[in-house]
């Protein structure tokens, strides 16, 4: 089962990468919202590839989580510590990729998410130094585009390679991953792009950020949010050395609390 999920996860990553390579041809950071809308409504098969890119990436995250859960359910983690670290790092990078992808759709929710991210970075000691790496004063989406389209895929590929040693395409698993993605896209719609001129009372960031958003609204400090975000990764790292019940309970508690704040 673990191997099955691992291969599908890898295939999903490749689908996401390839569909991303296609949509990048019609994406213009200087005219981001318009280019996304053109892609969705005018470009032949544009919506098909946008949905493929979106859903393969979403399922990719879920399959990573399932993959980790399966590994944690085992008595001991069989891979070496370095490989374990790379896998957790890959999860972190995947989430950052998802976030930057969310921003690149350039609608009102994307703008708001970017502004929240800027504010979080600005108010976080040490991380505030990295703000110029994402904020561009001339073309708002340019640096997000560079990270999402170039550096983060390279970094995640490196992390995955370090984790699995070899990135290979198994045509059968690839077919299954593609089938799952298309099945989901047949029944689910892309989250609605909120037009730049639309009057909306509330916008939300990507789903994995809802908990943090609500915690911020409830009054948690920026430092507290950083701790909340980094905590599950630290717990996962800690589990390699001592896969104790306590750490598992802590992680479960984190999931319950975060889920509670997310809904």
């Amino acid at each position, binding site marked *: 089962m673990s191997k099955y999920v691992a291969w599908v996860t890898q295939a999903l990553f490749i689908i996401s990468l390839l569909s991303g390579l296609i949509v990048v041809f019609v994406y213009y950071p200087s005219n981001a919202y318009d280019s996304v809308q053109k892609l969705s*409504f005018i470009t032949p098969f544009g919506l098909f590839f946008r949905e493929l890119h979106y859903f393969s990436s979403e399922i990719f995250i879920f399959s990573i989580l399932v993959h980790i859960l399966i590994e944690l359910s085992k008595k001991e983690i069989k891979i070496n510590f370095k490989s374990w670290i790379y896998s957790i790092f890959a999860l972190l990078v995947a989430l950052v990729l998802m976030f930057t992808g969310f921003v690149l759709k350039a609608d009102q929710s994307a703008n708001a998410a970017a502004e929240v991210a800027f504010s979080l970075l600005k108010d976080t000691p040490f991380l505030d130094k990295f703000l110029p790496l994402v904020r561009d004063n001339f073309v708002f989406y340019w640096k997000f585009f560079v990270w999402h389209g170039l550096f983060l895929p390279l970094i995640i590929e490196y992390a995955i390679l370090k984790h699995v040693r070899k990135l290979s395409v198994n045509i059968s698993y690839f077919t299954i991953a593609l089938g799952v993605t298309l099945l989901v896209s047949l029944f689910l719609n892309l989250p609605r792009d909120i037009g730049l*001129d639309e009057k909306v009372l509330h916008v939300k960031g990507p789903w994995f950020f809802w908990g943090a958003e609500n915690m911020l609204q409830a009054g948690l400090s920026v430092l507290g949010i950083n701790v909340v975000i980094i905590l599950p990764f630290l717990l996962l790292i800690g589990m390699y050395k001592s896969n104790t019940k306590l750490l598992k309970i802590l992680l479960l508690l984190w999931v319950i609390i975060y889920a509670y704040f997310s809904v």
Partner: protein
Amino acid sequence: MRIFQYSLFVSIFIIGVSLYMNLEKPIAKPSSPDQCMSCHSSTTNMDKSHPIEVFGCFKCHGGNRYATNKKDAHRGVVLNPSRLEYANRFCGECHSDVVKRVSSSMMQSQNGILNVLKFQWGELSTPIGLEGVVELKDKNSTSLAESHFRKACASCHVNQHEDVFDDKKYARGGGCVDCHRIEKGHQEKNHYVHSKLSSKIPSKNCLKCHNRSNRIGISYFGKFESEGYGTPYKHGEFSHKLDGSRFYYELPADIHHTKAGLDCIDCHTEKGVMGDGKKNHHMEDAEDIKCNDCHKPKFKKADSLAVMLSDLNGNIPETKSIAYTNKKNSPIYNLQKDKNSTKFYRKRDGKAFDMSNMSNKPYHTLDIHKRLDCTSCHSSWVPSCYGCHEVYFENGKQFDWVKREVTKGSWQEFRSFLRFESPSLGVGYNKKIMPFAPGCQVIGTLFKDKKVEKFHAMAMAGWDPHTTQKEVRSCEDCHFNPASLGLGRGNLDIKNNRIFFEPFYNSKKSGMPFSYPIDGFVSSDGKQFQTTSRKDARSFNKKELQKIVGAYKCILCHDRYSDKIYKDFNKSKILFNSGKTVCLD
């Protein structure tokens, strides 16, 4: 292994289905300038400046310009982008200066009406201060004047919601379209006819609002709101109807209308109407045009605004030399001068009229009349509505035009009598002598929970009534008519340089809560009875009254400006005072 094979098989099937569905999907045919055109291509243009082939729909109405289905395309669409809450986003992209000015203009805020009302009803010490409609929006006020404003006055402002009017014929508001729309959008058999907008604003758009209170709009067209009942009947219907419950008499219309068929916008400049960006307190502050601007014009080189406006109009030729207003330096681009002539062009159709300068004859240059505003002589009549009985029911309910909902408290209005002849004169807001009429005389009865209260707020106001004629009122009409002097209607006599006046109207006998005649602005000894609508406006004082009436004995003989004493009046005066010319009295 079997699960793997099944999932592989199902996946291949799903991929096949998905590919089939996507290949079957019709590929959107890009349309220009936006995808809206794929459905709305037959919609007509709203004017020649905003062709739909160039602007499309999205530019002005928002929505999703790329969407190929109605649901996505119409998400966020604004039906009327000219409402001021949207105008900055849409119209303002090109006309930001104008949107900003209109948003702070008096026709949007109605601060002039609100402040004057509060001042006259004793709630403000000066007729300035409040911001108007915007300020009242979220306020739960207990002020009587504010209540009256909400229920009776606030229906007329540029950004009023048109949908709150039951009778769409009288709908006002809507932002820019309140004035600029000349035809409402409607569906025809095969296509949609877009609302038509124009810079050639027909007077009927102005009259939607300017038909009450000082009634400038209807007076200009020779309609005097009367106590009549709309006869003669024509085709079995009333013929002289203003709206559902008001009727009019026909009186001489303004010469600008009768002689040249001018519309309001032929004189009123864009800055005067849409505001100048400043917070003006009263109509005359916002107003730009003066009689002199056209009748004694100063010509200058046409600026870019003038060129743009005449180009937009399409009927008015571009020229190098045009007139400008003295007050705000606005181009009067339809008053032009070339080598041989001065022409005034009617904006509606470009019809040209020869203009000549105001004459320099004694009636315009005499020093003794330098304090007269043009309107004091040239206004032939003023609608004068004396004594407005306002009844307030505290427990009643009435529509609040600011909150746009029915709220507690209702008002009913009954009037006493209306006159038009011999307008009263007084010292106006510009410190010049001008016609005055009631504005407003309120005798109020307040039905409160368990008691009835009464109040009165009597005021006269001076304004240009827009009933201009070339022929002016006679010398006697100003110098010995008690109504013109502001004393009211009655018998006037002068003995030993003292003015004696016996009014026709007896307020006490009429049950009024004051002793002076209802049409009396001032007593014969110069005591002002009623307040005014402006801080500087007032009735004549004793000295002025005596001076005016005192001249009557001269006027009895010298009643024509052609009389030789007016050729050099100062010289005539010296000769007379030194006894060298004899009065044949």
